[in-house]
């Protein structure tokens, strides 16, 4: 029951192409779109730049069809990890990563999938749809991810482009559904051209093919996306929770008070 959102629109170098993508998304009825920067660690070491604010790139955002509000544009970072050492970037607190609205990770091995679901501080875990899954999903990491509020992302644009990838998309999605029972799924495009975007109700129908129920499929495009965006916001705002307990010694109580003030300013 939230506005429809497409959380994966690749940020290309060409500004005009991205502008036409945004206009197509607004025309189809999406209220929010996330521009995705993909960082692949297999290539030579890349610097993670600070995200450019969408309001600087696109001075006039299009109005969503059927309402009178403007399209909301967020920034998103996807890390393609194939080695445990790549995850160290996420653990450090003083990089530009914190400035992105949504952080996603694309694990390539089973161990990394487990690490991403259980310990990494991300909002989305991408599921590979372009090739046969190299590992099977197991219940414990998936359930832990659901408890932590992490969502699994499925893409649908590879399915539009190629029929082999269509088979892999559906089979990977169905095997995920059997484990997670339809909870915490987000379906998004990775559209590079406006023609590859599909309307939100069509994407919800695609969710039915993956084995979601009617309500879950519509939620995958609306409510779950909103929850992901809020999860990203909480990551930006709170670094930790301080729990103060009244102790008998007053000195100890005063010591904890400056500590929580410190944590707030760090965030």
């Amino acid at each position, binding site marked *: *029951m939230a506005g429809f959102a497409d959380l994966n629109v690749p940020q290309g170098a060409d500004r005009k192409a991205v502008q036409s993508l945004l206009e197509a998304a607004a025309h189809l009825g999406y209220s929010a779109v996330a521009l995705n920067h993909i960082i692949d660690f297999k290539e030579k070491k890349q610097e993670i730049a600070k995200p450019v604010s969408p309001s600087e790139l696109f001075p006039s955002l299009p109005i969503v069809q059927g*309402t009178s509000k403007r399209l909301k544009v967020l920034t998103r970072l996807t890390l393609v990890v194939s080695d445990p050492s790549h995850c160290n970037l996420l653990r450090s607190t003083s990089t530009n990563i914190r400035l992105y609205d949504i952080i996603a990770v694309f694990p390539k091995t089973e161990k990394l999938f487990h690490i991403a679901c259980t310990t990494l501080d991300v909002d989305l875990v991408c599921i590979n749809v372009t090739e046969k899954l190299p590992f099977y999903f197991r219940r414990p990491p998936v359930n832990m991810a659901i408890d932590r509020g992490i969502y699994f992302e499925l893409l649908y644009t590879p399915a539009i482009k190629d029929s082999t990838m269509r088979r892999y998309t559906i089979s990977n999605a169905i095997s995920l559904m059997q484990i997670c029972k339809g909870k915490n799924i987000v379906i998004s495009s990775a559209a590079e051209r406006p023609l590859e975007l599909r309307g939100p109700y069509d994407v919800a129908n695609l969710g039915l093919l993956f084995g979601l129920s009617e309500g879950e499929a519509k939620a995958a495009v609306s409510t779950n996306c909103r929850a992901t965006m809020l999860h990203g916001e909480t990551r930006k705002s709170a670094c930790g929770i301080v729990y103060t307990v009244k102790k008998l010694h007053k000195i100890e109580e005063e010591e904890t008070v400056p500590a929580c003030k410190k944590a707030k300013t760090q965030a």
Partner: protein
Amino acid sequence: MSTPLRRLQQAPRHLLVCEKGHARHERSRHAAHVRDHAYNCRVSVLIPECGVLPQVLKSAVADLGEYYVVRGLSVHQLVAHEFIESFVRKGSCYALAYNTRIDQDNTAALLPSGKLILSVDKDTYEELGLQGHPSRYSGKKPMRYIITIDLTDSNFHPDGKKHKRVLWALKEKKPLEFDFLLAWYNSGAEGSTLMSYFSKNQIQTLKPKVTFSTLRDLQCPVLQSNELQGKPEESCSTEELFEWLGAVLNQVNLDNVSSSFLSTYCCPQPNTIVDQAFLCTITGFIIPEKIIQLLEQLCCYFGEPKLAQWLTLTVHGFADSPVSWRENEHGFHKGGENLYNFVIFRNLDYWLQMALGTNDDCPP
């Protein structure tokens, strides 16, 4: 593997209720059903065997009143006491937020009974601070809430706590602003009009748009007024008529030509071919009182002998309205249809079909 894919064989839930009655019977509820459905966006009349509309009907169609579009109207202006005294208490005032989606954004509607319905999403509900209840179609974690404020309540006077709280919430805590479609029906008593009251906002008067067309060589199903289910070789059932009527009103080709890939739908058997049929479509914000008048004129159509065996009046409600009939909540899953259809026979029997979509209640 079979359980998740079994759902593919099921269509989203939809409901069609069929009723039979006689228009001149004293306990006939046709007028009550029309009055309960407050927001109507399209009215279509299909009369078989008719080339030209009679003058009486033409004037009835032209006299469907006018409605107003106000841009950027704050909801607290609808709660202002002056508005309640001048319009809500004296006649029936209809207001519906325009350009909002019921499954994505906040919506507001004012019913003629004086109830203001706000359908808001979770964030707005928590910020607004008014008492409401979660939507019935929202799932385990409610994402949508419905707030109902009774403006004609005796506790809702200017000095009361209720009014102060509502005004504070809508004016200062979380101001809500929409483009509204407004209409007012008062039975004769003069008073200030909506135009003059909202002259400070951008208010515009509009008349419903009317289009006429004549369909040639149309296949019409044969119907018998006392056979709702239809007899196998003699008449068609109500469901078949409903589908056929939908096809005709959407200008679907009923030929089932082999070269056409769009539709293989055929007119149900038994059917006759009529030379011409008159189709009149009216779009706009049409209030139920005018539809009742139109219905009466259509019943009088059969006062003189006519070739037609029956005629139909179809009324569509707004897909994004928060209520369907009375105060039943209306939702939009994959389609937001809430429409009703009268089939009036020569002997003034009628069939009433009410159709609703997935996130809807059964109509009264």
